[in-house]
């Protein structure tokens, strides 16, 4: 057991290492030059060359990579080319924002999605299912940036219910912090809830065919217990899989929402960094995301055995 865990852990490290190589090469394969972007108005070749030298971009690739890894292992992920801020500082500033957004989204979307899925499965073909289906369709078929725009115009500007954009750190004010994050979280959560709703509903319908559901009913269990405690519980593995994927996806994929709401998250950092070919930042972000995905997959594999004791994934 411990051995298996260690092996997986090793594989995880290897994955992160591979990711670091791939991103290192991939970002350099993109056309466009950070030194050029950085030189800005002055496209003077001498300046560009000087910047390249300073960034070490004139060195052979393997050397660049080894240097990067060497520093990274010592906790130094380099300095952002465009803003001159250390990448670790940037990550430290953006990660908490995105984490908070993710947690809120998971709470809003995850719970609502699973509940709606249960409702849909239980009252199959009746109005509660209709309602939850319609809601999920809205979540599925309206783009985030649209919902965001509508929320900003109506909820933000017209009704003044929430700040239009921006961010307040948690330690400054909890209320303001949630105020800034709740609308984006609801928007992101709408899609998550929709996806979970459909998945949960389908898997629960499968579970409802099982005889143990009858046996639980025969004990006199309340319907909520039958539905949540047994049918939902038995269909959780897939939902958790999806949740894990979405969790990782949110950590990096909320870029558009972050952009619109002016949230200083890691997704926006990443997008801007790719656009400006800010190599160290892109590398840093990818490393963070890789580590989080590896950790999430490990966690989920452990969760599987808890959720369904018969399952043994990954040997």
């Amino acid at each position, binding site marked *: 057991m411990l051995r298996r865990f260690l092996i997986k852990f090793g594989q995880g490290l290897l994955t992160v290492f591979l990711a670091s190589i791939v991103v290192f090469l991939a970002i350099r394969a993109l056309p466009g030059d950070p030194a050029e972007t950085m030189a800005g108005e002055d496209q003077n070749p001498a300046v560009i060359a000087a910047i390249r030298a300073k960034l070490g971009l004139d060195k052979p690739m393997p050397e660049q990579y080894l240097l990067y890894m060497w520093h990274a292992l010592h906790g130094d992920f380099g300095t952002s080319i465009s803003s001159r801020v250390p990448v670790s500082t940037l990550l430290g500033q953006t990660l908490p924002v995105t984490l908070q957004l993710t947690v809120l989204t998971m709470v809003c979307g995850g719970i609502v999605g699973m509940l709606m899925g249960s409702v849909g499965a239980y009252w199959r073909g009746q109005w509660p299912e209709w309602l939850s289906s319609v809601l999920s369709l809205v979540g599925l078929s309206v783009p985030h940036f649209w919902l965001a725009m509508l929320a900003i115009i109506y909820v933000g500007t017209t009704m003044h219910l929430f700040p239009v954009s921006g961010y307040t750190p948690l330690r400054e004010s909890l209320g303001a912090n949630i105020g800034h994050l709740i609308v984006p979280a609801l928007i992101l959560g709408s899609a998550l809830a929709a996806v979970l709703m459909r998945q949960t509903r389908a898997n629960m319908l499968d579970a409802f065919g099982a005889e143990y559901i009858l046996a639980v009913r025969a004990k006199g269990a309340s319907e909520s217990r039958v539905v949540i405690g047994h049918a939902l519980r038995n269909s959780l593995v897939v939902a958790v899989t999806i949740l894990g994927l979405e969790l990782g996806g949110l950590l990096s994929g909320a870029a558009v929402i972050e952009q619109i709401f002016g949230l200083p998250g890691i997704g926006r950092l990443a997008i801007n960094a790719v656009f400006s070919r800010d190599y160290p930042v892109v590398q840093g972000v990818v490393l963070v995301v890789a580590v989080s995905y590896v950790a999430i*997959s490990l966690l989920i594999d452990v969760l599987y055995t808890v959720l369904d004791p018969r*399952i043994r994934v*990954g040997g």
Partner: protein
Amino acid sequence: MVAAATARVGSTPVKEATPWRRFRRRMIRNRFGMGALLVLFVLVLAGVLSPIVAPHPPGDANFATVFQRPGTVGYVLGTDNLGRDILSRVLYGIRASLEVGVLAVLIAFVVGVPAGLLAGAFRTADVIASRGTDLLLAFPFLIMAIGVAAILGPSLMIAAVAIGIGAVPSILRVMRVETARIISLDYVTAARAQGAGTLRILSHYVLPNAASSLIVRATVIMPGAILGESTLSFLGLGIQPPMPSLGGMLADAQQYAEQAPWMAVVPGAAIVLICLSFNTLGDALRDALDVQVVSRD
């Protein structure tokens, strides 16, 4: 002896219900499912025939007719900020969006399902597939899309491929855990005892029993892909102009949310219609394949 055995509990048999007949009957009897199928058929037809049925070329700007409201003569659904006919653009857009959606789902399935099955069944395959998806996921979808678009230039195909590949992990992971779960069940042990090879177990035992999850995945990925394309369009990485896509139209309309809401409403409604029909069809399929739960009708 046999005669005695057969003269048993009474039943009034209809036509012999083979699984396929059962499936077809359940499908046909599902009003919503058939409705969805019909709508999809019309949508596909509209998309395919768009060069013929569209009243205007989709990309032709006409600066004399910008921001016409829906209902204007000659422009039934109005025009956009460049004076282009929204009806024509939606017709072409449906085609593009369906292409993106179908292509993305196909890619995701063709790669994800076999890989997930193998990963659920074999340890080595699992290591490769799981770590592979971790690696893939380490690159945030948008970063990957931007990267690909930067190298190859944005296009419909690339958007679809990027979205499809982006959806592979979710199919793969779901398939993997479903495989692992189903493989641990007694009827698979029974199949193994009969000498069923892994291939047969995966295709005849795991797949049908994971069908529910898979169908749902497909119906969720489809709108996801159509919207994903709109996000890519929003970032300028979508389909090439002047060809419209529904997502791209939405992205363009965002700036005119207050000024010309119909620019968003029309393609938005088309997307909702597509999503609605795919999801309804998916539900109907799932229900028709589900032999355990019998409909109450």
